[in-house]
Structure formats: structure tokens, C-alpha cells
């Protein structure tokens, strides 16, 4: 696998066809001066990915205001065979939301399509446009005494269109499923500009192929999601949070089982956090505090949630689960949040894991999933495999152990040379991904494929599946204008 590096080489030039040049002019006049930017410095934030690994080229960044406009732009692009990169908050971890180097493209940024079209309280749904920031949707639901459970670290800037296109996961998958499972209907602009209107707010609808699921997780390679009907849930009222030091990874998995059974299946959060993650967060992020007095190797952030008011019974069960865990040696110590402030302080230890890694230096990331039962053996085997490549590597493991998804990241050795470490990128990837394969896991649990794992995917996805994906792609997007270079 190639090592991405923004500064490695000067960007080469490329030429637009006459049809593409005309298309750019047509789009400019279609959207008007407020609907696009084309100066390099104005486009810059849209051309570089969040991690600073990928940088591409674009002729224009357009900010469409409605589905009709998206459709018109796509029609122009389709006729001119002009590649299109749909973009939301540009928080992709895999370079999925920025264009390729050395090729023409138009970026469609959805920040202006941010309306909530319909909020149906009794149907427990809301119909929203692609450019709504996730946090705004959570807030809107909460203000109306409802709950939209999709939650992830980038929620303050990521947009729902991107969340759906990448089938995002996050911290609530254990109880509510990933983004795909939170969608009832979709509105999609197809690569020829047609609008597929499927904004059904139905929980039961068996009328032929489930087309929306083609686009959920397609990362913009089959069409552009412009709006969606999202499922809502009753709002949690009692949230009981504990930050537990666990004696081992298998103790954590045993604790998860007990907590699910004994709470009446009220476990909403089960996040695993390793010691190094804690150390990096405490080192780099201001105002963070270790909730426990002693140092431990592994932690679990556990939350039980009730939609009932003052659910004293659940709280009592929560204490009993923790007490039992402590008596049996699964839990070594635990802090219980006594206020919302403390609960959020627990979360800030978890949510700053990615940010603090970035501040610490180079890291090689793996977003993997294995069956929950296989987590302890996987953890040990993958760590050994990494150490064989780089004996001084530091493991930054954290993630949603409750749903089998771990961020199994590797930080550069504390006093090593960054370039030596980066040179091992491919070998470390292979070490981890081969172990994933042995345990029947996935090399991309929730971040998608993007540019980062496109080649890697060909080693791990069965040939029949890859072939079928290619056939679907060719049928829907024959000119390959939709987010080229991503996924397949």
C-alpha cells in the first residue's frame, strides 16, 4: 500500500476537455456567484482531508441550495463526464471526501442544504437535508423530547449526508445500530441527474429491492444523498455512567455480558480505553483528569440508560453490576459520575483519543471489527503481530468494544525516528489486517474505505463480492464520475 504524504511531490498538471471547461462555466452561471468558490486559497479547506494526508484538485467547490440544483449540476457534469466529489463536513478518516490529485473534479459541498424538512413527533421520524450537522440534529430531536442516537467524535462538524454515505458507526451502535439502521427513506441524485425520491417514513415497506441500502455506505460512488428520513427514539432521562478499570480485556467482555443481562439490556455505552490513550489525553488535552487514583492498563466507560424518570431501580442494578464485577475481580476500581459534568468529563477522555494521538505524532490507524467474543484473543494476537514488525511500537487501542469495533492504532515509538516508523506503515497494516482476517473480522468497521483502504480491500474482500460491486457501479455510474478513486 502506498504511503500517502501531502508534501511528497509537487502536484502534476492535467488538462480539462473542452466539454469539461464548458461544464465549469455552465455550473458557475447556474449557481451564481454566491454558490461556488474557485480560488485556490478558498478551495483549500475542501481539498485537504481532516488528517492532512490527502490533497486533491478541483475546478470549483459548489454549495448547492436544494435538490433541484444538485440535480442540474449533476446533469451538466454527466454530459461533460466531469467527476463529482460530494462533501459534507469533510471529516472522513479515509480520504473519502476530498478529490484525487491530478484530475479534474467538482466538489459539491452540502453546507447550505441544512434544513429540517419535517419533524414528525408521533411517527418518531425527522426528514432532514444532507448538510445538517449531526449535533444540530441531535439537539433538534432532544428539544422535541426525542432522541437521535447516532453519535461520534466529529459530531460537531460532520454532516448527516456524509454519515449516511459512509454508514457511520460511533458510540451507540450496540443499542441502536449504525447509520444504515437509523434510516427509513432517502432522496438521492443519481449520476445522470435523475432524482430518486424515496423519502418514505415507513418502518415496514417490502416493495422490491431495498434501493436505499445501495447508497448507504456507498461513499458517494453511486449517487448523492440529498435528504433522508431518520428514525427517532424516546429520549433517555436517566444515564448512569461509570469509568471502570478492568483487570483484562476478557474481563471487560465478561462485564459487558453481565451488564447487558443484569440491567435488562440497558447498556448503551461500552467503550474500551487503553492506558496509553489515557496518558496521551491527559498529556495533550487541557482540563482532563484521571477519574481513578491508581494507574491501570485497561478501562471501560460503561453507561446504562433509561427512558423513565428517576429510574432508581436501574441505578440500583447498575451499582449491583459494578459491585459484583468488583467482587469477582473483573473490575479493579471504578468512578461513578455524580453529575452531568462528571459524565461528560468521562466522555472527554474517550472522545479526545483521536485528537490527542494527532498531537502526539505519527500514528497508523486501524478501524477493525471482530465478533465481540473474539476481542480478547484478537487483541493479544494483533499486538504480537505488530511487535514483530516494530518492537517499540506503542498500542493506542480504544473503541466500541460493545459492538466489536476497535480502533487498533499504533503510535510511533517515543524516541524513534518518524520516517522509520512511517516506512513500516504497510507492514503494520498487513500484520493487523491479516490477524483481523483470521478472526473473521472487517478491516473497516465504521470509517469506510475511501482512498485509504481501496487497494487493501482487494486483498480481504472475496472476489465474487468485489466483482458484484463493480457490476453495480458500472450499471449505475457507467462513466465513473461519482467520487472516483474511492472504494472500488
Amino acid at each position, binding site marked *: 500500500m502506498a504511503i500517502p504524504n501531502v508534501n511528497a511531490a509537487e502536484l502534476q498538471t492535467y488538462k480539462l476537455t473542452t466539454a469539461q471547461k464548458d461544464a465549469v462555466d455552465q455550473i458557475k452561471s447556474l449557481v451564481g456567484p454566491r454558490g461556488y468558490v474557485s480560488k485556490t486559497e478558498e478551495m483549500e479547506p475542501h481539498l485537504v482531508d481532516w488528517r492532512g494526508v490527502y490533497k486533491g484538485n478541483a475546478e470549483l467547490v459548489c454549495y448547492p441550495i436544494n435538490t433541484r440544483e444538485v440535480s442540474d449540476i449533476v446533469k451538466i457534469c454527466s454530459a461533460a463526464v466531469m467527476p463529482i466529489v460530494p462533501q459534507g463536513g469533510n471529516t472522513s478518516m479515509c480520504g473519502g471526501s476530498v478529490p484525487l490529485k491530478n484530475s479534474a473534479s467538482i466538489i459539491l459541498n452540502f453546507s447550505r442544504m441544512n434544513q429540517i424538512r419535517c419533524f414528525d413527533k408521533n411517527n418518531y421520524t425527522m426528514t432532514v437535508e444532507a448538510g445538517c450537522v449531526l449535533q444540530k440534529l441531535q439537539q433538534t430531536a432532544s428539544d422535541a423530547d426525542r432522541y437521535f442516537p447516532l453519535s461520534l467524535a466529529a459530531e460537531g462538524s460532520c454532516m448527516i449526508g456524509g454519515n449516511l454515505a459512509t454508514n457511520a458507526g460511533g458510540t451507540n451502535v450496540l443499542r441502536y445500530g449504525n447509520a444504515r439502521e437509523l434510516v427509513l427513506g432517502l432522496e438521492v441524485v443519481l449520476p445522470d441527474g435523475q432524482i430518486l425520491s424515496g423519502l418514505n417514513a415507513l418502518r415496514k415497506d417490502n416493495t422490491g429491492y431495498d434501493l436505499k441500502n445501495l447508497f448507504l455506505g456507498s461513499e458517494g460512488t453511486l449517487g448523492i444523498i440529498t435528504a433522508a428520513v431518520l428514525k427517532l427514539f424516546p429520549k433517555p432521562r436517566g444515564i448512569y455512567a461509570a469509568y471502570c478499570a478492568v483487570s483484562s480485556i476478557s474481563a471487560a467482555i465478561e462485564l459487558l455480558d453481565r451488564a447487558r443481562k443484569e440491567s435488562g439490556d440497558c447498556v448503551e455505552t461500552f467503550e474500551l480505553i487503553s492506558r496509553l490513550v489515557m496518558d496521551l489525553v491527559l498529556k495533550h488535552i487541557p482540563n482532563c483528569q484521571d477519574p*481513578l*487514583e491508581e494507574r491501570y492498563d485497561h478501562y471501560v466507560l460503561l453507561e446504562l440508560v433509561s427512558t423513565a*424518570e428517576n429510574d432508581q431501580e436501574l441505578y440500583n442494578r447498575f451499582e449491583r453490576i459494578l459491585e459484583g464485577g*468488583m467482587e469477582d475481580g473483573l473490575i479493579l476500581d471504578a468512578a*461513578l459520575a*455524580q*453529575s452531568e*459534568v462528571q459524565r461528560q468529563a468521562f466522555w472527554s477522555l474517550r472522545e479526545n483519543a483521536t485528537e490527542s494521538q494527532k498531537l502526539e505524532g505519527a500514528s497508523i490507524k486501524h478501524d477493525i471489527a471482530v465478533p465481540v467474543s473474539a476481542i480478547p484473543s484478537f487483541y493479544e494476537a494483533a499486538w504480537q503481530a505488530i511487535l514483530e514488525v516494530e518492537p517499540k511500537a506503542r498500542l493506542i487501542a480504544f473503541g466500541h468494544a460493545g459492538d466489536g469495533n476497535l480502533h487498533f492504532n499504533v503510535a510511533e515509538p517515543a524516541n524513534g525516528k518518524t520516517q522509520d516508523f512511517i516506512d513500516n506503515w504497510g507492514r503494520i497494516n498487513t500484520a493487523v489486517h491479516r490477524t483481523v482476517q483470521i478472526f473473521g473480522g472487517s478491516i473497516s468497521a465504521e470509517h469506510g474505505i475511501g482512498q485509504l483502504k481501496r487497494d487493501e480491500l482487494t486483498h480481504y474482500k472475496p472476489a465474487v463480492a468485489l466483482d458484484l460491486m463493480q457490476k453495480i457501479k458500472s450499471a449505475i455510474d457507467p462513466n465513473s464520475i461519482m467520487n472516483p478513486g474511492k472504494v472500488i
Partner: protein
Amino acid sequence: MKVLVPVKRVIDYNVKVRVKADQTGVELANVKMSMNPFDEISIEEAIRLKEAGHAEEVIAVSVGVQQCQETIRTALAMGADRGIHVVHDGDIEPLVVAKILKELVDKEGPSIVIVGKQAIDDDSNQTGQMLAALLGWGQATFVSKVEIEGDSIKATREVDGGLETISVMLPAVLTTDLRLNEPRYASLPNIMKAKKKPIEQFTPVELGVDPSCRIEILKVAEPPTREAGVKVSDVGELVDKLRNTAKVI
């Protein structure tokens, strides 16, 4: 010596407070309640005095409804030794709380009372000062550092424009500011231990205090919402707006 620490049950700092539709107060139904953050700091300081060998016993006191026991339990889980709950339903004013605390001081004989400088619900910032006056004790308010020096306390206070260091004779009342310390979390073993710690109950009347309010709240209203800004095209328009619309020049 003993240390007495009042702890107030207030709307959680992270909850968005809403005014009741009839404007008689703020919405408390189904709202997450927690210990006043300044009182957490007070409890932490008291426990640290005990850990440093200056204090033998930390007593947490709460005045209010039955659920204040949860707030006392939190204090006990952090490390306070026992609790006193003065049961009272309905509104209560700083002066009444100060009178209740005075009675408890007379009963318990602490050398230091550590009070949060204010509660985040009514922001009164009165109880500590009133208590010091009622007791005739010295007081160090808004403290960000406390050192015990024999029979007095050297206290650093947060004042406008800097820090002030004063010395107060014991017994004394301290009121705590944000920077004094970082309160600890309640650990599972300590929560379990806290369940066995005693909480005594009294009513204000049993302590000889009349809890009735002297202040009548006429109306509680939201602050006016901020209006959206406008863009001006040139300096002339700006000056015109400042003079004629905003009327500030």
C-alpha cells in the same frame, strides 16, 4: 478539629435551565440535579484537611427536600464522615440557611465551616458571610488556597485585579472559589462505604429556626434574546446606525 460543609442540591451545571411557563420560577420537573460545584470544592478541601492531619471529622449538611440525601451521599462517597439533613420543602433563603448552620455549629462545635462562595442556581453569594456574622467568626471569602498555621488560617483570596493573602483566626468561615482544588470522583468502593455512614435528620423548627421566606418572588423571566446582527456597507452607514439605531454615539 471538625469541619462542617454545607452542600446544596441544584440543577446540574450542564442542564439548560428553562423558565416555567407561568413565570413563577424555573422548571425543576424531570431535571437532572447535582451538587453545587462550589460545594464539591468545599468537600474536597475539607477531605484534604483531614488527609493532611488537620481535621478529624468532616460533616456534610444539606438543607432541603428529601432527595438532598443523594447530595449528602455524594459528599460521603467523596470522603465526608457523616451527614446532617435538615428537611424542608419549598423555597429557602440564604439567611435561613445561615441561621440553621449557626445552630448546627453550636451543636457540633466545628472549627472551620467551608461554604461554596455561591450556589449556581440563585447566585446569592450570601450564606457564608451571613453565617460568619451570626457566629461572630472571622471569614475568608473566595479562597483559592488554604494553609493551616497553628490557630489561624492563611488564605489566598481571588479579588478584582489579583490575589490577596490574609490570615484569619480559628474558628472561621471559608468560602471557596473555583481554583481552590479539583474535586475527586466518587469511587465505587467509597460509594459502598458511604451507604453505611449515618445521616441525621432535623427540621428547621427542631433547630429553633423559622424557615419562612421574607422575599416574595414576583416573576422569573428569560433574559431578552440577542437580536441578529446586520452587515453595513460603509463607514457612513455604520456611523448612522450607531447614532440613530443603537443610539450609542
